[in-house]
């Protein structure tokens, strides 16, 4: 059983991802903002993190910047989740250290495939 941390300021968004991942047999932890995501990540040492980019306070870019400074998180797969669909956003996310990129609204199969790819 892999540990997955889901950070999203919208509880419905977290529940959706949690449901899909739990059905796929993973253990899911939640964080409702950037600061909480950093604290949770350090505490549980997840195998995969799914980060909403747009969160009030510390956003997804802020979280990944903090985490990638930690030796333990140098290679942890981190998926960016965003409702923005502007060109160049994906490049920006990849340059910031994200290993995956999914746009909202998610298609469940796309989410499942991306998660399995990164956990393999």
């Amino acid at each position, binding site marked *: 059983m892999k540990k997955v941390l889901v950070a999203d300021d919208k509880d419905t*968004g977290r529940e*959706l991802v949690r449901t899909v991942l739990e*059905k796929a047999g993973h253990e899911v932890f939640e964080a409702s903002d950037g600061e909480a995501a950093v604290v949770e990540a350090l505490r549980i040492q997840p195998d995969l993190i799914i980060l909403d980019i*747009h969160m009030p306070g510390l956003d997804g870019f802020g979280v990944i910047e903090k985490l990638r400074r930690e030796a333990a998180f140098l290679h942890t797969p981190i998926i960016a989740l965003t409702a923005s*669909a*502007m*060109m160049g956003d994906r490049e920006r996310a990849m340059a910031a250290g994200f290993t995956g990129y999914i746009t909202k*609204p*998610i298609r469940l199969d796309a989410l499942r495939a991306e998660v399995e790819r990164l956990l393999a």
Partner: protein
Amino acid sequence: MLLEKRFRELLDAAPDAIMQVDAEGRIILLNRVAEDMFGYSRDELMGRPVEALIPQELHARHVEHRAHYRQQPMTRTMGSGLALEAIRKDGSRFPVEISLSPSESAEGFRVTAIIRDTTERRTAEERLRKVQEDYTQRLAEANAELEMTNRELERANRLKSEFLASMSHELRTPLHTIIGFSELLAEKLEGPLNEKQMRFVQHIHKDALHLLELINDVLDISKIEADRLELRPEAFDFTALIAESLASVRSLADAKSHILETTSNVPTAIEADRLRVKQILVNLLSNAIKFTPEGGRIGLEARVQDSFVVVSVSDTGIGIPAEEHESIFEKFHQVGATTKGVREGTGLGLAITKRLVEQHGGRIWVQSKPQQGSTFLFTLPLESAERKNQGA
């Protein structure tokens, strides 16, 4: 005596002041215009040095000029004459133009001066200059105003695009939940649904996806209008992309029992933004499917002509009247508005398609008659225009 009278008449008939001075610069002859011009009587001027008619500060220089002229006498015509200032008896000054001609006679050296009061011309010139200045000033003001309006328009346009982009982001967030959970329910992983419940969930899912499509269109057009749509050209197999595009509309076509036919004869790879070209193809194909009654025939043909790929998407649908062949590519224009047909979508699809084709350096047009189907044709350069510009 008669000769002198005639001479006097001739002199006084001249429109300019005429004067003659002797070698010492004393006035020895003048006509009536000269009297009027300077405000002196003939008696007052006869025998006076000509400097009496010149402002005080120029006296010394004038005496010098005269001496110089005495040594090198030559005729100066009015056009090349001196532009000077003269002074009247009452002390008022006025601009004059003077032409000189020397003569040597038994009585000695003489200079004849013809003097023209140029006040009126100066005034006219001044007025003209003023009009010109005025005009220039007004033009500059109008330009400044126009520039400001332009800047305001640009700003408004940018704000509008930013608003649309942020709206689109805000709209996608709740759609994420609606689409995700309805998909989850339809998968029945959380328990069985009866037939009716399943149908309802599918309605929610389908229309949520449609809404997403509309939002994507609005975002696209806002990006295009903000000129922020960047193409990312890459070399790819065009025939493979056609197959991919057909696959993504096949379920739509099957639902209306359309036959999809395709011939592609594009042997080389083309260089373009693959995703955007797919968007063009899917847009045209789904329009064809949408506007063709059940059991129709949708054809996609691609071939190379010169340095372009020419693609045609034809259908056996309701067709488009000639007067709409241009306007269908405008924003929010829908053929359904005048032709009895299907009305769904944003009315932005063809506007976006046209902009995408043109940004690639191609063009798009339609051949159609009502009730006889439509054929949309577009061209794409084989080589990306951007790459070509870089000379690579």
